[in-house]
């Protein structure tokens, strides 16, 4: 899926905010969320592919505006709710506010099956795009 997470080569972004010896975490909650998703995988609540996909299903506006560990947090919470481990109502009551989750799983849309009519061995003419 051509989601917002597919950032390789996307243009318009600014300089990398690089410093030598840059931090991995900036707050204690980031460390705990990073630990929690690892524990959830270990306990078999979800696997790594489901985890990554849950992050990719985030609303694009949320994905772009969230830092890395907010994306981790959203993927973790989304899967815990979808798997019936906890409810969104409980999370929002505990958090004292809204708890945005990723968008639900859908059937998706595959690529057009007959997009290219050429057969192996056909002669084609090709020119680079401008």
């Amino acid at each position, binding site marked *: 899926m051509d989601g917002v997470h597919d950032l390789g080569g996307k243009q318009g972004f600014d300089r990398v905010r690089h410093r030598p010896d840059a931090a991995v975490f900036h707050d204690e909650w980031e460390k705990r969320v990073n630990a929690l998703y690892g524990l959830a995988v270990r306990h078999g609540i979800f696997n790594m592919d489901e985890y990554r996909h849950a992050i990719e299903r985030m609303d694009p506006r949320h994905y772009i505006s969230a830092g890395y560990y907010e994306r981790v947090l959203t993927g973790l919470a989304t899967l815990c709710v979808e798997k019936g481990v906890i409810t969104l109502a409980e999370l*929002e009551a505990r958090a004292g506010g809204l708890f945005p989750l990723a968008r639900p799983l859908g059937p998706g849309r595959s690529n057009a099956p007959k997009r290219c009519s050429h057969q192996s061995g056909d002669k084609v003419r090709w020119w680079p795009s401008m």
Partner: protein
Amino acid sequence: MAANTDSAPLVAAPPQRADAIENALVSRGITSVRAVDEQVLVADEVWLPERGARVVAKAWVDPGFRARLLANGKLAVAELGIEMPAHHRHLVALENTSEVHNVICCTLCSCTALTVIGLPPDWYKDLEYRSRIVRESRSVLREMGLDLPAAMEVRIWDTTADTRYMVLPLRPEGTAGWTEARLAALVTKDAMIGVSRVSAA
């Protein structure tokens, strides 16, 4: 996300959301505060770049180990007691030479061989690095302080869920006869990502 207005409830801040999910999971006995504490400690004190630095230094001084590292990274780092999670199925060591410079990234997520080179630094996970390093590699590296000669080939490696990479940097000049420990002290996480080179200065 719902728009925040005077009448609508506000989105809870990330620290409150993080507490909410931890407390909910702990209240169900799925995990414990202690288990989370222990996992935090592993991230802080075990998954450090000093591990990868040992791998690099050994590869510099031991041609047999270097060959094994290039052939099968996961098996080679296990010789040094460095474990990788089951879903990190492959570790590919990318050897820099005088003609080729390697750089790693993860455009889709932020994957790394985190148990070997350490957890990724903040900028590696930012949208700027993920989007630009594959398209404007030389410019991005220059902005980050690494100005490569035009004749040097640059190879950017995009990490996948299964395959993790580490850069094996060039051993710096003037280090003949150095011990592994002294060499390892020169090797940084940035050098194993490929955004800097190792210097003995």
